[in-house]
């Protein structure tokens, strides 16, 4: 999975897993510092996921809080044989499903007309490093990808985000979504192609 900072790698999968399990055990004993460490470790990937799923940063921030509260409440049911990150994203995924169900939006279809105004589609992101003219060009490409991604149906977008932005393996995504690995792969490839088509159409 993509790291909290987005760049630095985790020490290793098993070390990270042991670390997570130890933090969960401490949090279950009432150690708030341990849960704070869990939040600090996963807030970035979770916000990235929820941001791309909602398309609105403020809503994504609220949802991040809600998901962590749900995680805290569900800690007693966490089983160390599962990977904590996949378990957490399963909760986040179910949260989004509940949200869409309540909003009666089963999936955002390609046919749906969307407001292309800055407020509705642009996500506030920190600035990258500043090389001069190329920076503007890159920013434009990224903005186009973000916009195109919003036009992808929510169920496909979710798999795409988990794979390419959160960098989960296909097996982990299959565990999060309860789908066969082959189906996950096919849908991710299908979304790649859909995104490519949308970008070509918008250029």
């Amino acid at each position: 999975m993509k790291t909290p900072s987005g760049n630095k790698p985790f020490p290793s999968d098993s070390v990270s897993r042991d670390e997570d399990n130890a933090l969960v055990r401490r949090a279950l004993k009432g150690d708030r510092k341990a849960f704070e460490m869990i939040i600090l470790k996963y807030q970035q990937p979770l916000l990235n996921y929820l941001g791309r799923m909602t398309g609105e940063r403020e809503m994504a921030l609220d949802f991040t809080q809600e998901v962590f509260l749900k995680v805290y409440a569900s800690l007693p049911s966490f089983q160390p044989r599962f990977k904590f990150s996949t378990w957490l994203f399963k909760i986040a995924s179910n949260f989004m499903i509940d949200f869409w169900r309540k909003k009666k939006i089963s999936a955002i279809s390609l046919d749906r007309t969307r407001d292309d105004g800055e407020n509705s589609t642009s996500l506030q992101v920190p600035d990258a490093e500043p090389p001069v003219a190329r920076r503007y060009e890159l920013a434009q490409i990224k903005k186009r990808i973000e916009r195109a991604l919003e036009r992808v149906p929510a169920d496909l977008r979710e798999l795409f985000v988990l794979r390419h932005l959160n960098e989960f393996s296909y097996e982990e995504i299959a565990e999060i979504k309860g789908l066969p690995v082959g189906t996950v792969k096919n849908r991710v490839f299908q979304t790649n192609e859909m995104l490519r088509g949308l970008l070509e159409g918008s250029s």
Partner: protein
Amino acid sequence: MNCLRPPDIYLYLENGLDPSAAREADEHLALCPGCRSAFEERRALMDAVAGLPDLEVPPDLAGKILARIPPDRSSRFGWLVAFIIGLSSFFVGGLAYVILTGQSLTGFLIDANRSTWSALRDTSMVFIKFAKLTVLGLDLLIRFIGEMGKGLARFGVLIRPEVYAACLLLFLVLAALFVAGLRRMFLHGEKS
């Protein structure tokens, strides 16, 4: 080798092809300009997607979340605190009673002792009655299960064995689904 399909190109990009297939793809890409162009196009897209920036996390997010979590009441020494508070309340209450009524301390302790035993006696009576009711309930349940068994046996005589087996199978499937649902709810109880 045939031209590469998009899923093959993505697998190739992710090093997901097995070594022999990857070698064949290498060779094909060196010879086929169409596939090479398709490959470059998809590689550029994947590079651009990988370069999408993180959303900015506000520095106080963790603090906000922790502030919404109620303090843990079941701490390790919670029982000790409760015990000390109870004991202190007893002594303070007793002292106030003695001062206000003018009763002697011995008299207060005798009264307290009598009240405690009376409360214990009443509690045990309630407990015994509850135990009797539980035994009665269990007895009724066992009889009910026995009668159900007899009923099923008679039902089995009346219908053909295949139909009986089908009914039993259906019941087992429904029971398994019910148990699986319960398990999912309790084990993966993250879904609200």
